[in-house]
């Protein structure tokens, strides 16, 4: 099979991605941090750091704890605010030939709306990822994503002002994630991204103190992959809109598994910290897999898990 004929392009809403491999918010900065290691233009997309209306200093150090096969973080949406993003960061990244998504967060519905309005004006930003699942902020964040009425309220309000592709990033810290997914689909989400981190904690037995300044934080890395895979599969059964799957993807095999569970695109998160060039290896590995399995079009893998 001729590699050049492999079709890796996928679509979410009206937006085409050259391949399904993206990098996850909060693990990839804004892109320039990775220019030494990878060709960013080869990626299907990037989701830049969570952005809020006003600047946020984030939580106090320590904000990170290493755990078996994973890590906790409690960064708390440190960012310089949407104005600095639009005026200083966007000009630096607008010429990337990849789909740049901005992860939008807020403490109130109004803050989400105002931030999304500003991002809507940016010509080279084709989409937002509405973050209703950050576990590390006192107000807003995950609180919006853990009940159907609040998830609907923020998604509906942002949909009124944001005209391009909008995916909603869901929290795994819920009883039934499929219900939340259906609720945001009904009010106009173009896609669902999942999962954000799992609420977790670490204690240092010697000092008898919590490792994180915030006591609890979000668990990521391969430790959460089986949970993420299950949730992607459940949501894929429940909604018609496409899914961006993530949670502990370390290599191309993991990526393929998420697609088989029902993801149209995948996001690489924590693995970027271990190997800043991992995203390129995932694209290469997906191509190899397609050749080995005689798959011409990657879309045939989406939800392609075989029945027992």
């Amino acid at each position, binding site marked *: 099979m001729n590699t050049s004929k492999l079709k890796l392009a996928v679509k979410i809403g009206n937006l085409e991605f050259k391949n399904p491999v993206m990098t996850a918010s*909060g*693990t*990839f*900065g804004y892109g320039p*941090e*990775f220019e*030494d*290691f990878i060709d960013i233009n080869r990626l299907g997309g990037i989701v830049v*750091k969570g952005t809020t209306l006003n600047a946020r*200093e*984030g939580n*106090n*150090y*320590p*904000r*990170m*704890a*290493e*755990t*078996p*096969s*994973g*890590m906790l*973080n409690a*960064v708390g949406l*440190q960012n310089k605010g949407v104005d600095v993003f639009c005026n200083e960061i966007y000009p630096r990244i607008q010429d990337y030939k990849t789909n740049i998504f901005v992860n939008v967060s807020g403490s109130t519905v109004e803050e989400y709306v105002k931030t999304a309005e500003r991002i809507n004006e940016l010509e080279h930003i084709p989409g937002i990822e509405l973050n209703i699942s950050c576990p590390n902020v006192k107000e807003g964040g995950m609180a919006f994503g853990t009940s159907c009425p609040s998830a609907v309220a923020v998604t509906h309000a942002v949909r009124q002002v944001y005209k391009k592709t909008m995916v909603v990033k869901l929290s795994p810290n819920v009883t039934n994630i499929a219900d939340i997914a259906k609720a945001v689909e009904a009010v106009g989400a173009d896609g669902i991204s999942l999962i954000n981190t799992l609420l977790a904690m670490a204690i240092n037995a010697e000092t008898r103190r919590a490792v994180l300044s915030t006591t609890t934080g979000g668990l990521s*890395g391969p430790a959460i992959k089986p949970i993420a895979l299950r949730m992607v599969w459940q949501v894929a059964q429940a909604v018609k809109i496409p899914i961006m799957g993530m949670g502990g993807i370390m290599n191309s095999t993991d990526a393929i598994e998420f697609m088989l569970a029902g993801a149209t695109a995948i996001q690489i998160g*924590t693995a*970027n*910290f*271990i*190997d*800043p*060039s991992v995203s390129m290896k995932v694209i290469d590995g997906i191509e190899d897999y397609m050749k080995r399995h005689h798959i011409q079009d990657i879309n045939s893998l989406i939800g392609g898990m075989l029945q027992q």
Partner: protein
Amino acid sequence: MTTTYAKKHVNLLNIIENKKINTQYFILKVQAPHDISNLLPGQFVNILVADTRHAFLRRPISIYDIHPQERTIDLLIQVVGEGTHLLSKLKAGEQVDILYPLGKSFSLLESGKIALLVGGGVGIAPLLFLAKKLYRKGVDVHILLGGKGSNNIIETKNFEKYGKVYIATEDGSQGERGLLTQHSILRKSDFDMIYSCGPDAMMRAVANIAAKHTIECEVSLENMMACGIGSCLCCVTPTKSGHQCVCSDGPVFNTKTLEWNK
């Protein structure tokens, strides 16, 4: 802090030597495939520990010394946990996955100036390369090394090549007895810069002494990190311009810029 840009690499490097110093310390000598002459003192590398569930993230390790002609980098490492224990078992001929060079360097004084380097425990790691660079620039280099006992005082012969070495041990087994920060050399006020690396409390005390004598002071911080390249925002320290990443805005900071009491 110097902001010279050097392209970062992530590579499998050949281990040339793993030299055991004592039960706690070892020096890993690795060879890079590229020119390394642009590496600077204060910069660090991030090492991947293979075959473990517990050391999931890379281990940030200071650059102890470089040998540009052989393209080798020396890494002085203290065994503190499972990650560094596994690294201590690596052998010459094996390979190790290293992300480098990371972070910003110490600023280098000009010829004729006087520098004091203060290193506690494994905090001496970034100071040898600094001493060498300063010495070669014609700076008058003084080096104060300290630890609990003589077991923690290592590599003094190497430091003596580049400056006058002073020692403090808490048990009095070598040099002056007492905390490093009580050493008599710190009563002198004619230094143009104090550079320091070691435990947090030690660096704060050194910074206070420097401030009292109105001497510029740079410290190398070692907060817990995930990425090492400024993308995860986990290793922040409070500064006068807000939270800054130790990995990419530091690890070297002028103490005037830090908000240590926040």
